[in-house]
């Protein structure tokens, strides 16, 4: 699901909502939005990899 959410959030038309000359903490909204989405996606991927990693700890195929 994660890549699809990322695609929806990063592609038009959703992204156009944030493409406005508004500043947030002195930073352009679009910059904050892009990097925030990006960071959240990475964090989610990190959590997901931890979850997926646990049931199969001995995943070390030789070869």
């Amino acid at each position, binding site marked *: 699901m*994660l*890549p*699809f959410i*990322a*695609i929806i959030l*990063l*592609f*038009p038309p959703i*992204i*156009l909502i944030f*493409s*406005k*000359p508004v*500043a947030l*903490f*002195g*930073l*352009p909204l*679009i*910059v904050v939005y*892009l*990097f925030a989405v*990006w*960071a959240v*996606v*990475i*964090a*989610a*991927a*990190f959590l*997901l*990899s931890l979850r*997926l*990693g646990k049931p*199969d700890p001995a*995943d*070390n*195929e*030789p*070869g």
Partner: protein
Amino acid sequence: MLPTDLVIFVCLGYVAILFAVAFAGDRRARRDPSGWLSSPLVYTLSISIYCTSWTFFGAVGSAARNGFEFLTIYLGPTVVFVGWWVFLRKLVTVGRVYHTTSIADLISARFGKDPTLGALVTIMAMVVTAPYIALQLQALTSSFQVITFHAGAVTAANTSLEPDFTTAFWLAVGLCVFSIIFGVRNIDVNERHHGVIAAIAVEAVIKFIALLVVGLWVVFAIQGSPAAVFENAPDNLVAPDDTFGLRWITLCFLAGAAVICLPRQFQVTVVENSSESQIRTASWLFPLYLFLICLFIIPIAVTGLTQLPEGSNPDLFVLTLPLNADQDMIALLAFLGGFSSATSMVIVSSIALSTMISNHLVMPLALRFSIAPAASPDAMRSFILGVRRASIVFIVFLGFLYFFLSGASDALAAIGLISFCGVAQFLPSLVGGLFWRNATHGGALAGLVAGFTLWGYTLFLPSFGGAFLMPESVILHGPWGIDWLKPQALFGLEGVDPLVQATFWSLFVNAALFVCVPMFSEPTPLARYQSRLFVDVFRHQADSELSVMRRTARIADLKHIANRVLGAQEAFALFATKGIPGRRSVIASDELISEVEQRLAANVGAATARTLVSSVVTRETISVEELKRLADETEQIRAYSAELERKSRQVEVTAAELARANDQLRQIDLQKDEFLSQVSHEVRTPMSSIRSFSDILLSDPQLDPERKQRFLRIIQNESIRLTKLLDGILDLNQLENGDVEWEVEYFDPNSALDQAIESCEALASAAGVKLTRKGKVPRCRVSGNRDKLAQAFINLISNGIKYNTSANPIVTVSTSLRRGVYEACVADNGPSIPESERERIFVRFARGPMPRKVGAGLGLAISRQIVERLGGKLALADSKSGAQFVITLPATNRSPRGDR
């Protein structure tokens, strides 16, 4: 500026460190293959060769020119990696399990180990990669020129410098040396290069630190705070109007495709992968790396645009900003970062391509034309290694040549995206190959050729702006002035970004052919089998080829090949672990053949390995049974429906048999009806006479006595006839059912004949017929019932008497015995029986051609039944005049008991 000597010295020192790291990495990997070099961190860092100098220098330039667009190049891969479960995991597993050596190997192996596909992909990769390498060489030389320019960096960045080809040349040489030393040391199983990977990881760290340092310095030392950065930022970085359109989507897509399809990315992501945990970590760590790299791109771009003089080359902001502020150390670090990103890309690309060139271009040709030395085991190995080394030099210098020819023109700057679009052509075959069972070799080939051709026509050739192959007039007005063939507005698709329309057309046609061609072609059994292996990689990992392929080869031959490719030591080890005795002319098992092929494939690619092994395989069959067993659901359903079809055919057959039986029953029923109707008719005829004459006698008492007498006689005769008829019917019924036991005895058939003649003599003399007997035969005996046979004779003789219309009627009886066959003949000189009637007269109630006098019409039928039951035959013999009935019976010579 920095002194040239110092820069060179630092570079050399840095390279020396890389050498040391690579050496140490190689040695360490040999001691402990699963050590920290196989750790997910190193794996992720090696993937970050995605960030080339095009990122290091170019991203800032792109941000300065086009705002947020540069982000797409990193968002695409982010989506692919965080969604690793969807596609990357499968790709990497296939690559790991089947020892894939390159993207060309994977595609060719998937579609039936086809050498043509491998060669095609290799050539495409070469065309796409060479300009990319040229771009790196340009970045390296210009950054070197800028940092050592005597009049100061800012001036240098503003002047359009003549490219320094000498520097570029020596850089190319250096890169070749490094790649050859660490990339082609051995032709190793799995083609993993621990030394190179270690060095690449170090370079990834360096470029990361360099960019981070420059970024932090810019934000906090120059601007003071993040917010301050954006105070003077250009519009397209604050409130972009039309960044997020089709081009945004296209670029994200292309970048996502490229991070899989670029030969160097495939090399580090798939080929160098050794476990799933690596990719699991990379799924978030690599996006994080990209995230951090991008974090400072915008501040650097904004600062460069605001602080440096107008017209400064934004591609070199990373370098010129620190130089402008006299921060030499930071500048040097930035230079090293750029140096790292460029060299690592060239090294990995050249290694990946050299493997592809040797496995998919040179080896197949060498094998076909027997150029490959086969004399000694080592010759083959050194031939392959030689080919790889030559390929590296070839690739790097192809890039150099490209750089040399295009010079400092703008053509290079755009090459990054053009390359992305080129390698994206592999995507349909790659994705389809892994997820779509019915994808065929023909579809992949057609898609790749068409996609690549369109890419060349709509994007690559126009990018030279008329300088190469395609003149400017064609770009502006289409070939021969045909408007709708304009490369950048194909089929009148005007007003769309050239990159977007090129991507659309090439990938659309590519994917369409990939999907449509399989509708008209059947995959080969091998391709079907490979398809199953690849598509169902998670389900069938345990299965090996041996269950399907039935091949026979001599062990000695296999060993010879293994020696040639793997080297004597490894070959020996391979055969030793298999416990194969070294005797010659022992036939290798399927398992061993597959094992050898797999090991060879890990070195020279699946297609070449197959060619090699096939050259010694004496017999190869694909077991249909096994294929069926392994077949996917569709095929199972097909098998099931075939079974159903077979069963329904059986049912049909049974139904036909039943229908036939039913027909027979109906026939019998009809015969019975007919028989009843015949019996009724036969009974009615004498009854008519009886009734009519008794009527006359009753109604006419005045009848004269003579007449009265005559009519009564008729009534009496007809009554007798009726009785005989009923007896006959009962007799015949018994005979036909065979349910009445006869007393079986051995008797002389002549005695039965004598008995018959005796009883017919009265009838004959009454009818004025002469009854004669000819030549009495020596006594013999038959088995059966004497009285029954006599009855048959009586029927025949009395027929001859009754129906004889001759003026001088004679009935002749004769007998003979020949070779154990007793033959009795009853002939008359009455009317002969026409050919057409000959069989019919034996049928019940059949009428002869002449008016019937007396008799029920059952005589011949009964006689025939009797004779057949005695094991003999009753037939009508050919005769010119009269009728001649012949009875033949199996007989033995004179009975010992002398029965009569």
